[in-house]
């Protein structure tokens, strides 16, 4: 069993598991942090961004004025933002049989994998994962296509040139593999390969393995996967959560007794407790509004935003924010808010029960009804006429490089009354803000990451007790910035097997057993004999027939009547000589009785020596050794075949024959 690791990002994994003649891709996350190296894409013309000076190296030898711009003391690429894809050279992606998706954040690279690589397999995902994943992809495509950039910067990627560049650009890795965003057509084509599955549904892959998604509690429709054959079980744990937020709770018990557990998607913010952060979010929001400022929340259009809205729903009364408008701006805002209400079966119990009342499971329905929350596809159109300040705006993209958020940064950045509150943990907020400096608006960083933390995962592993754990190498040491926090790492016995981008791991277990079926008529012909109470044994002579990874024992075909052909006679045509099988022996040789028998046969001088596994009998007169052990008997006598045969027969008297 082998694991190919195509992504080094612990929360945006992309791994390939080769297991029992199947090749399974586990998630295909897209690392979007690369976009932080690019200039923001403004929705409306920004005089500030358009007037930025081009970058020329100090000695003037390299002139990349067109491609790189100097902005707020840092150099950014002036081009359509590009993403860092999973590794595509490590193995032939066309050999992948299936792709298992855990949640909608971990499928953003799907079009890059399924299109243009020769991929012919199937993608498995739950329905909310597919639908919300589609929304997120659509949103990104929309953000990019709304602001087309003719040029594509490539010169800076030249190895020689990149080495001379300042700051983070110099250290960016694999820049040649970075790719522009896919098109809507590619998204549609990729998603057409998805086959929907429900929790605990078992899907057979070529008869060799069975895969099954389990609820992981992280987001709507998010799942962990069990990949098992008859005798082996691999668990794949991706973004999971034990907190009681909106999704169905995590199914932990089904992860028990795994041979290997592949652990990814732990919280990116181990020191930030989601409850504390939610509190922080609310109080900073209230503080700003009370002081007459606006609040900008850069976020994804699905996921934590539902919880934020629910929390605010309860909070706005006590903080007397009843009259403050909340705006949610995204090309998919409407679909996201409505989708969340219809996936009732994927919600936690108490939200499910609301559906039968009937009430919308999420309170944002009421916020919309009472006009406290309004949603718009973009800042153009209706929004501009109904926009009222002070207000709270939820909009994407959290990287602050594209989407409507860019506009609000330009609009509100200059006033210290306003606040930007980061809730998504995927991007470093300082890097995200870099092209907007100097910034007067207040920044609050309260990343809300509900995924498992180290404390929870240690408890989980103690409970489910996998034989081996495989995880990204980041989880095996404390975070770089907090090297003293030994509580922020995995400590297991045996230690977990770490992986990084491009690792190929040989997973430490061997296939030892296969299930083999026996045909009824063959079974009927067996004659079992009882060797000890409750255990019967029979010998079988049969032919193993293997098809679709299924093995069956069939009766040995009778030799066909020999055709009276004289023309060609080949050795192959001769019926195989079926020898009567030798009887199988079982039982143990009782020492006292055996010695008595030897004596009867005139062997009297026997010296008995006890060994770890049995006894050694030294027949001194004959100069012969008899080793009686649990799983074997050896008679050592030089050149005395008659004696050996006699002794052998004496031994055989004590054994049962089958």
């Amino acid at each position, binding site marked *: 069993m082998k694991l190919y690791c195509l992504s080094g990002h612990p929360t945006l994994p992309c791994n390939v598991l080769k297991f029992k003649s199947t090749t399974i891709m586990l998630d295909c996350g897209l690392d979007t942090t690369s976009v932080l190296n690019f200039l923001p894409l403004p929705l409306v013309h920004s005089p500030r961004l358009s007037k930025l000076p081009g970058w020329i190296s100090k000695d003037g030898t390299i002139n990349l004025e067109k491609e790189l711009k100097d902005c707020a003391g840092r150099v950014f690429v002036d081009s359509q933002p590009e993403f860092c894809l999973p590794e595509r050279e490590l193995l032939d992606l066309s050999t992948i049989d299936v792709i298992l998706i855990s949640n909608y954040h971990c499928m953003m690279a799907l079009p890059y994998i399924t299109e243009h690589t020769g991929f012919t397999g199937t993608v498995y995902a739950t329905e909310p994962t597919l639908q919300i994943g589609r929304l997120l992809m659509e949103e990104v495509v929309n953000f990019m296509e709304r602001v087309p950039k003719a040029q594509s910067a490539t010169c800076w990627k030249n190895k020689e040139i990149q080495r001379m560049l300042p700051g983070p650009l110099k250290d960016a890795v694999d820049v040649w593999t970075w790719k522009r965003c896919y098109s809507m057509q590619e998204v549609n084509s990729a998603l057409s390969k998805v086959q929907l599955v429900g929790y605990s549904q078992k899907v057979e892959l070529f008869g060799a393995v069975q895969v099954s998604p389990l609820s992981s509690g992280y987001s709507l429709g998010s799942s962990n996967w069990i990949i098992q054959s008859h005798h082996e079980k691999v668990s794949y744990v991706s973004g999971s959560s034990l907190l009681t937020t909106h999704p169905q709770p995590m199914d932990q018990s089904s992860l028990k007794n795994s041979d290997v557990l592949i652990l990814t998607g732990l919280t990116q913010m181990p*020191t*930030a*407790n989601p*409850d*504390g*952060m*939610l*509190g*922080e979010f*609310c*109080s*900073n929001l*209230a*503080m700003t509004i*009370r002081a007459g400022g606006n609040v900008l929340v850069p976020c994804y259009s699905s996921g934590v935003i539902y919880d934020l809205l629910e*929390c605010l729903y309860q*909070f706005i*009364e*006590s*903080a*007397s924010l009843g009259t403050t408008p909340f705006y949610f701006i995204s090309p998919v805002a409407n679909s996201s808010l409505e989708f969340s209400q219809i996936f009732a079966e994927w919600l936690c119990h108490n939200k499910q029960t609301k559906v039968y009342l009937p009430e919308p499971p999420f309170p944002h329905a009421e916020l919309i009804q009472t006009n406290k929350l309004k949603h718009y596809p973009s800042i153009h159109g209706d929004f501009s006429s109904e926009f009222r300040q002070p207000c709270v705006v939820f909009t994407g993209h959290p990287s602050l490089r594209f989407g409507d958020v860019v506009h609000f940064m330009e609009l509100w950045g200059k006033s210290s009354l306003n606040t930007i509150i980061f809730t998504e943990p995927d991007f470093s907020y300082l890097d995200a803000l870099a092209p907007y400096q100097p910034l007067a608006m207040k920044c609050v960083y*309260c990343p809300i990451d509900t995924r498992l933390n180290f404390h929870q995962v240690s408890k989980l592993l103690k409970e489910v007790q996998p034989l081996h754990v495989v995880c990204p190498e980041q989880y095996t040491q404390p975070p770089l910035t*907090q090297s*003293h*926090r*030994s*509580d922020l790492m995995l400590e297991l016995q045996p230690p977990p097997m770490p992986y990084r981008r491009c690792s190929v791991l040989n997973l430490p277990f061997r296939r030892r057993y296969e299930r083999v079926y026996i045909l009824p008529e063959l079974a009927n012909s067996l004659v079992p004999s009882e060797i000890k109470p409750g255990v019967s044994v029979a010998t079988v002579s049969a032919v193993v027939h293997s098809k679709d990874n299924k093995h069956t024992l069939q009766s040995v075909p009778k030799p066909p009547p020999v055709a009276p052909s004289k023309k060609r006679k080949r050795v192959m045509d001769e019926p195989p000589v079926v020898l009567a099988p030798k009887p199988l022996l079982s039982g143990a040789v009782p020492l006292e009785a055996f010695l008595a028998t030897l004596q009867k046969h005139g062997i009297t001088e026997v010296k008995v020596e006890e060994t770890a596994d049995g006894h050694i009998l030294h027949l001194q007169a004959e100069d012969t050794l008899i080793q009686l052990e649990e799983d074997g008997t050896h008679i050592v006598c030089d050149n005395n075949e008659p004696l050996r045969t006699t002794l052998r027969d004496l031994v055989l008297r004590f054994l049962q024959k089958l």
Partner: protein
Amino acid sequence: MDRECVSLLPRVCEVLAASGSSLPDDTSLEKLLDWFTGLTKAGTSLLESCPCLLEFISTVVHNTALDPSILSFTLRLTGFVAVTEVAFKVLQESSVLDLVFNLQHWQEAGLWEDPCIRIGWIQGLRTMMQHPKALSFFVQADFLQPLLQLQTDKSLFVASAANQMLAHVLLSCQSVSSVGSNDVDEEGEDVGRSGGSIADLEYSAVTVETNQDYAAVVTAISECLKKSLVPRENTQLHQSLQILKLLALLLAQTRPPLWEKLLQMVADSVDELLVAGYSQLILPLMDVILAAYSSCDVNRRAPDQRVSRLLSFMLNIRKPADLIQAAAAFLRRGLHDLVHTAQSARVLLLPLDIITGLNLLTTTADEQRFLMMEQLKNKTSCISLICVCLTNTPQMTLMAADCLPCPPVLIVTAVLSLLKLCSGDSSSPSSSSSGCREVSRNVIGSSKVQKCALDALTALSGSPGVEVKLAEVFTLLVQCLDNPDSDPTVLQKSFQALVQWMSVCSDLSSITDQHRQDLLQVVRKRSCDIRWEVRDSTVEFLGRLAGVRVIQTTAEEASDASVAVLGGCCFTTPLLRAALQDTESYVRASAISALAQTLAASWQQGAALTQEQTEIVNQLLEVLSWDTEGFARRAVVRYFIAWLSSMSSHSCVQSPASSSLLMPSVRSVLSRGSADLDWEVKVHTLELAELLLDEAFSGQRGYTKGNPTQTHPYAVIPNTLHTRTHNEEDVVGVLNSLVQWGVVSALLSGLVDCDRPVALRACRLLITLREVVCPLSLGALDATAAMATVARVTCELPGCGWAREIRKMLVMKAKDANAEGGVSGGEVVNCDDCGEAGQEAASVGGQTPCVSVCEVLRSLDLDERLDVLTRSSDHVHNSPLSLLQDILTASSARSQPDTQQEVIADCY
């Protein structure tokens, strides 16, 4: 004793002796015993006053078929009856006593199995054993052995009672023997006096034989202590525990030579127990050693060598958890022993030393350090050990400098560093060693340790020389307050610690502008917190801070801390006003109190009112009218009490700036507050009324501030109080203004309130008012003549609610007076005295009837009313008479089953 009770008792005894099951409820017997206890304590001889008890006891004790609770009651009752020597003799002569306490009697009846009989037996004996006769009865009957057995009874109550009893026996023997051997000749003349307490035993004569008996008792008990102290197996730990408790009791109370004897007997066993090292026995063992040790301390004896040695042993035990417990127990006693105190301090500081890596201790035994470190690696025990250490740190810093291994400042540093570890912010300096890292990891995120450390930090503010740490403490507390993961209690404690440090340190020169900015930011954030508890603590903090006086360097003037660190009202008032809108009533209430504290300074300085203050007052009056929760409304009334009292203490009531707003507001507070549904709001409103009375009549003859009934009739009243001459015109003016402010209406409405505390307070105040305005002592005719002018002051009695009640009372009074043919009171209700119809007609006609205040005050029978109100509402229900009657009624109900059924039907 009440005659009525005495007359009822024989019938009650009959009922009880017949069958106990007809008691009104299961507490009746306990209540009866309580009554007897009270009587005995008051010196009443039960047998003399209730001779029926003797018969009762002798009847009951023969009837073993009775309910065990009655039998147990009888056993205990016998103890009370036999508490005097005379009664004891009577009981003994009638051979009741022998039977009552005869073990065999109870065992044969199969009743001894019932724990209530066993405990009755013990308690009866214990109560009785107040005189030598009882003691010799105990000895001769050979009750010691059974008592020793009961000490390990399976019922905890019985075991504990047996323990107490054994101690009592031994102490009694001690007194008697010491008297018998030394002092008997000198005090011989007092022979035969009936004793009521152990002390009296000393004056009794004891024969040589009995003396020997007592010695035998002492020996038997000490032998038993010695024998049972060391458990032979784990199941006997309970027994050892009991013995240790008894021993601690004895060593604390006995004197030499018995003390010596006891100690000598058990010393070896204690040694053995120490070596065995049972963790469960560590604390009781320490109690024993400390009891012995303190007994030397208290009696000014030099510490006994053996005890000192045992103590040293305890403070050197190997098991870290036991060691810490022992050291903490020693420190708690506060004994004057430099060596052991210093040693305990070192033990208690060791975990802090290890976890923070600060060198609090210059030297420690490596082995002790290693063992402690191993123990600290376990999370649960780490947290509990650290908490014990933290709890003791404040006391340690107050010890003599030579006992403490490091200066108090270093201990504060250690606590601060521990708090940093808890929040996961820093690694300890010595974190290079993996052991320490493993230890410090255990406290990361532990809010239990955080709370303990914050408590310790608050208490440490008073330690000598720690002021230099103020800036550091300030920074850390602000960090705690800013931490998103801090739980509400941690935040509350951080706020409290901050106020405490600022109030103790008072010199805030070390607080920089950055500190202030950080605090402002965090307070602003926490006032918008999602959890109401946090918003509440924040608002409370703002109020408390305003009450702390501090000195700033720049202007050497004292100001309040709120001004010094937060910039005063311009920052706090808007936050507090926003909190007035909070959805949680506790927060609104805290905000109102905080506003009062913040504005107190400006009130005292008599500063002119700002527009903002006017708005606040309007907002508060609205809260009083509309808020649905009592807390907020109570706070509003308290706000005005604070305002009014700060003004009156500075004699500013008449100052135009404030009175223009204050007095009209007070008027509406009085009218709204006295009509409130919450009784506490009403009581506060009456307090406000009292303030106005105080202000109006201060120095007036006859006016006593506060509770009139509490002043002693012969108390000397300083002359200075009489400076103002009795001027009728003054009184009229003052009374008029009291009526206008609504004070009189508030008091009258309070008087007829259905809540007793309200009515009581109102009644007292009305009496006070009457004594100033129209004292009853003058007599009716004199009063009319002397106060013709005052009597003209009237108040309105509208036709609804409380006023209707008052009118009814006045009409009743008038009718009574007329019936008696008296003159006074005829004119009380001058508008009409013709019953309700007339009253309503008057109100409907738009004319609110007016009555003379003086006449009302004189006619309301306030003194009678006060008398009724002063008694608790269940005083009738709880009296012994009622108890006896209840018992009789219940039994008669039982004898007539039909009625009882009816009673049950009535109940449900």
